[in-house]
């Protein structure tokens, strides 16, 4: 039987999920945190299943996290790194999907530089698909691990003031977090210069600030986003030093948030660009390493959930024959 609360085939995004579904996904992830901290985190629940990490974009952290999650569950893991930089290579996306599908994997974890590409691919395969990040669209497991981190530290998400600062325009992490945090009742503030804010972003339900000090005032959580270096040479921002001056998180700006405000970052960090090392390494307030740790737990839960949903379908199909 498919999971009664989350009966979906794929996890393509957070947008559209209900509070019930999101909390359920967090509840499923939570126990794995303790398991992973124990002496024997290995499980056999996905033994014989195949997880394919299909990455059309460079990634070390996310891919490793998914790989480790799958291995801990006893699954076979295949990593595929595909160059998708050119348009002509992009044409092979559907072909790649069809080819992989013919090998009957159970779960495909897909990252692609184009928004919507993972959805397109999911329509061509019979297995479960987890969106490992598509363009500037969504990165659902990142939002789930961020939420799990916050929930474990603060006990809840509802009512918290959460500031998300940086390149919102090009960030899939930001979008998935907006949907998730707003759905669970947080107040979400966005802090960025206008060149890094997408059009009509307020309509998603967030408040926008261009003055970081004002935006951070009384915040419970400060979530920093990575700013790509290529956007810092005059195209979106004049220079790194100017960005750091106005939008980089340092101790002085942080002092406006609540005294116990947590600092988060999806990584990899640009120290001295969007975040000062002094703040990033503050072990009392920075939960950046914990985010990485919980990422594995969340991905284990998602792999197990979707593999079981898929298996439930197969059982039903067998019974029908």
């Amino acid at each position, binding site marked *: 039987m498919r999971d009664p609360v989350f009966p979906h085939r794929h996890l393509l995004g957070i947008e559209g999920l209900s509070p019930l579904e999101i909390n359920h996904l967090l509840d499923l992830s939570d126990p794995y945190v303790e398991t992973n901290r124990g002496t024997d985190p290995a499980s056999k629940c996905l033994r014989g299943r195949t997880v394919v990490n299909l990455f059309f974009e460079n990634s070390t952290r996310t891919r490793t996290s998914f790989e480790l999650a799958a291995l801990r569950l006893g699954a076979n893991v295949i990593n595929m790194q595909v160059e998708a930089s050119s348009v002509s290579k992009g044409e092979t996306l559907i072909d790649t999907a069809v080819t992989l599908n013919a090998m009957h994997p159970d779960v495909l974890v897909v990252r692609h530089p*184009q*928004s*919507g590409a993972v959805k397109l691919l999911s329509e061509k395969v019979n297995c479960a698909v987890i969106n490992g990040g598509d363009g*500037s669209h969504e990165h659902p497991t990142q939002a789930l691990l961020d939420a799990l981190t916050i929930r474990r530290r603060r006990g809840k998400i509802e009512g918290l003031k959460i500031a998300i600062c940086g390149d919102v325009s090009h960030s899939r992490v930001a979008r998935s977090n907006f949907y998730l945090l707003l759905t669970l009742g947080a107040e979400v503030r966005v802090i960025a210069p206008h060149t890094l804010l*997408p*059009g009509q*972003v307020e309509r998603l339900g967030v408040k926008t600030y261009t003055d970081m000090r004002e935006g951070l005032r009384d915040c419970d959580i400060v979530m920093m986003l990575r700013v790509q270096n290529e956007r810092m040479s005059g195209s979106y921002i004049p220079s790194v030093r100017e960005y750091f001056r106005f939008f980089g998180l340092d101790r002085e700006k942080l002092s406006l948030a609540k005294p116990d405000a947590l600092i988060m970052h999806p990584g990899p960090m640009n120290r001295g660009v969007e975040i000062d090392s002094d703040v990033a390494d503050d072990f009392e307030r920075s939960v950046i390493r914990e985010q990485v740790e919980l990422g594995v737990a969340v991905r284990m839960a998602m792999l197990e959930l979707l593999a079981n949903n898929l298996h439930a379908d197969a059982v039903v199909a067998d019974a029908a024959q």
Partner: protein
Amino acid sequence: MTVEQPGKVAYVGARLLDPASGLDATGDLLTEGEKIAGLGPDLFNGSPPSDAVVVDATGLCLAPGLVDMRVQLREPGEEHKESLRSGCEAAVSAGVTSMVCLPNTQPVLDDQATLEFVARRARKLALTKVYAYGAATKGLSGKEIAELGLLAEAGALAFTDGTTAIANSQVMRRVLSYAVTFGLMVVQHPEDPALASGGVMNGGEMATRLGLSSIPREAEIIILERDMRLVEMTGARYHAAHVSTADSVEIIAKAKAKGLQVTCDTAPFYFALNELSVGDYRTFAKLSPPLRGEHDREAIVEGLKSGVIDAIASDHAPQDEESKRLPFAQAAFGGSGLETLLAVSLDLFHNEEMGLLDVLAKLTSIPAQLLGLQAGTLSPDHPADLILFDPNSAWKVDGDKFLSKSKNTPFDGKPLQGQVLRTVVDGRTVFEASNHARAA
């Protein structure tokens, strides 16, 4: 290939619709050879000439064939997307008897030879009459003026850089000034390439949600505002293609009020759809200009009603499957437009936004007049380019059934009313619906 000279054909008992004269009455029409010989309520007094082939048109509308002032035909160069043959077959099935293709073929239609190649190929097909716009600048590069005079002599109806705007103001000014010499208009795709660069859909909440980079409305507005100044400066005739924003309608209205020789068209996409059609990354709804918000769509309908928007063109932009089966940002722009042109336009009539004759005028007499074509009207001694259609007959859009090689219609699955049952070019029937699956 020789085309047989048609004899006399008598169309009996039709609802005659001639937007140019305002005629809307039941009656008959006689064609003789390639021309219309006569028409009117009591033309035959019950007995058509004995040497005429009689077509019983009872209960059907008889109107001038459609004049489509913006299609891309991809020949020469990209015949896998559309050829003159497939484009013309699609056109006649859609009731289009004259159409003007853009010069953005490979090679570009920027010299007499390529222009004459297209004309000759189309003449041989003897289906829809195909005319061409000449390139406004050499190679559509937006830098040097093309041989407008020679192109005009070779039959170019107007000049345009096709799907790119002439961005450089100095070049645009000179193109406009020079075009005045030959009395032909300049057709602009109004979109500032710098502002639109990298964009794939309309700017706003939807693009933000989908994580897609946007083409702001201002890309269109800025070029139109600039061009109005240049038109005023040069005294040229200017036509804005496929306007898509409320501000565009305002700008054109103001220019007309000032007495500038400015006209514009829009495509069915822009009065029948809005950006919501992009939905979950539907690449068939990736168009240029992009589908806009509902407010803009409503303004385009108003612009058509008020007459600020002169004409409706199909903006037929054929793409092959491979160009659309891609992630949204990588997919090609453009929609197959010919075969839905009439029925989607008739929505304006069925929704009681406009009268039937007013809708037809934007598809026939007005574009013909803008282009200087002897077409688009039911008048004696005019070419017998006609359509018989049933405005109420219902069908459902199925791109796979299109005669065009291009199946990329953003209207796929949409129920529509209005079907062409017979298309006549120069007195010859070139299409009859009974032979064709789409009518079923």
